[in-house]
């Protein structure tokens, strides 16, 4: 693989500081990370460690105070449909139907080059990808939390992004819905060969989905502590994996990092 493929996302020496009323808050420092094309990366760490900040830096919603982020050979200068975001709280527009929510992005990305019928096909394809063609004309308040998150994923995927960025996309869902959506996401990612960076605080989710798990140290001034290379072949089956020694070992690695090496600041203080 050439340089562009292996260093599809290239983060070098990134620092992020916020100006607050109490002075400067150093959220992230010395972040170096490269992501392969088609790789599935999860960012895990205790709350407040800056994983969402790192994701927002990759999306371009935030600009780093130091360092460089490069995606597909170009510096990330701001948000773009190329790096689509699935937001934690789905962020669907409540006054638009599911179809219209997805169409908004599709229209923006492909509207100049394609006919109305093609745009409609793309939108419907995205809806059917997440199994929600029946919810086409429904508004977000008429569907369940899991369905809303699926529309959020469909909205992101419909724009055919180079990178899919997910900020705790299943955090607000119950365990069964969450498992179901994780399985769906695995299938979709396998089919679309997407490059994914996902923030999570769920160890099982991280091991099940990722190629690599990037573990962040506690903030302030968080950085990358360790990276676990998940050696599990795809497609992955959650039931079979529950018995798998490698799965258990990866899980242990992450837990050890989170609860031994980086015990939560609150418990440390106590």
């Amino acid at each position, binding site marked *: 693989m050439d340089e562009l493929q292996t260093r599809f996302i290239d983060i070098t020496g990134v620092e992020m500081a916020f100006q607050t009323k109490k002075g400067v808050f150093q959220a992230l420092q010395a972040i170096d990370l490269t992501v392969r094309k088609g790789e599935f990366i999860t960012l895990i760490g205790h709350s407040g460690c800056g994983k969402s900040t790192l994701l927002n830096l990759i*999306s371009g*919603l935030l600009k780093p105070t130091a360092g460089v982020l490069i995606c597909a050979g170009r510096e990330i200068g*701001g*948000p*773009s*449909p190329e*790096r*689509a*975001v699935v*937001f934690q*709280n*789905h*962020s669907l*527009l*409540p*006054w*638009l139907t599911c179809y219209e929510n997805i169409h*908004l*992005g599709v229209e*923006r990305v492909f509207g100049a080059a394609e006919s109305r019928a093609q745009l409609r096909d793309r939108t419907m394809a995205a809806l059917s990808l997440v199994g929600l063609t029946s919810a086409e004309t429904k*508004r*977000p*308040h008429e569907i369940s*939390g899991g369905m*809303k998150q699926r529309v959020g994923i469909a909205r992101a995927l419909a*724009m055919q992004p180079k990178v899919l960025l997910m900020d705790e996309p299943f955090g*607000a869902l119950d365990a069964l819905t969450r498992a179901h959506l994780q399985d769906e996401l695995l299938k979709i990612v396998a089919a679309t060969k997407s490059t994914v960076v996902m923030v999570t605080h769920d160890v099982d989710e991280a091991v099940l989905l990722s190629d690599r798990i990037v573990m962040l140290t506690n903030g302030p001034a968080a950085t990358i502590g360790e990276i676990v290379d998940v050696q599990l072949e795809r497609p992955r089956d959650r039931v079979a994996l529950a018995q798998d020694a490698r799965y258990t070992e990866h899980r242990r690695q992450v837990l050890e990092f989170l609860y031994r090496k980086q015990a939560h600041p609150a418990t440390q203080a106590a």
Partner: protein
Amino acid sequence: MNALLKSVPNEPAPAPTAAVGPARTITPPRKPAAVVARRAQPFAAAVRLVAPPLTGIALVLLIWQIIAAQNEAFPSPLVTWQAALELFADPFYRNSPNDQGIGWNVLASLQRVAVGFGLAALVGIPLGFVIGRVQFVSRMFGPIISLLKPVSPLAWLPIGLLVFKSADPAAIWSIFICSIWPMIINTAVGVQRVPQDYMNVARVLNLSEWKILSKILLPSALPYILTGVRLAIGTAWLVIVAAEMLTGGVGIGFWVWDEWNNLNVAHIIIAIAIIGVVGLLLELALVSLARALTHEQVAN
């Protein structure tokens, strides 16, 4: 008010001695009792519904009657009622420019409010959008709005008379001034309070400014805008009466002043009631408009 009336509990009257004592002996007398209770219930509910407002009205009429009995110049409720019947028998007559039916006067006032208010909406809502969206403009207009907002719209009347050289546009000008502040401020606040999540969506989707305006800002700020519109029309209706007293011509405000000059106090009381009813109707119309236009705001 509506919610208060609707919240009157609709629970059935408690069935006496239910399931107490030997059931067989009690059954025959219990059944008719329950039927009676159920039949009486709609009537009781109706009484509970209308009794409080009727008591309030009766109290006002009583106080009015006492005042009228003490003061000869003050017409009693009955005299006022008779005057009202006479007045409403022919609301749309035209004897001369200064002697027209009550209906024409109300319509003239409503027309002024509509024009002044419409112009204010045309200017105020877009201006509110720009203020809410552009920091520079917000800070540019902030002090001016803060300074001018507390000024009575009537203080602007002479400026209107000077500029427009005519009473009618000057009254409309006062309405314009008083309606524009709540519309600017509420629109700006609504635009500023658009959830950051939606704005992040707009940034990631890289939406054009027009799409942001039509698909995100406008629907999100609409409830705020409609509140501004409601506040504005309420104030406009308050101000028109005062403005017309000063400018003269045809209109409910001038009519009140005219009747005062004629010492026709009954007509003044009738005018007060009419102003109240029209104001209430305007408010209700805007509330139902708001309900029709507002999307269902449902939390996640």
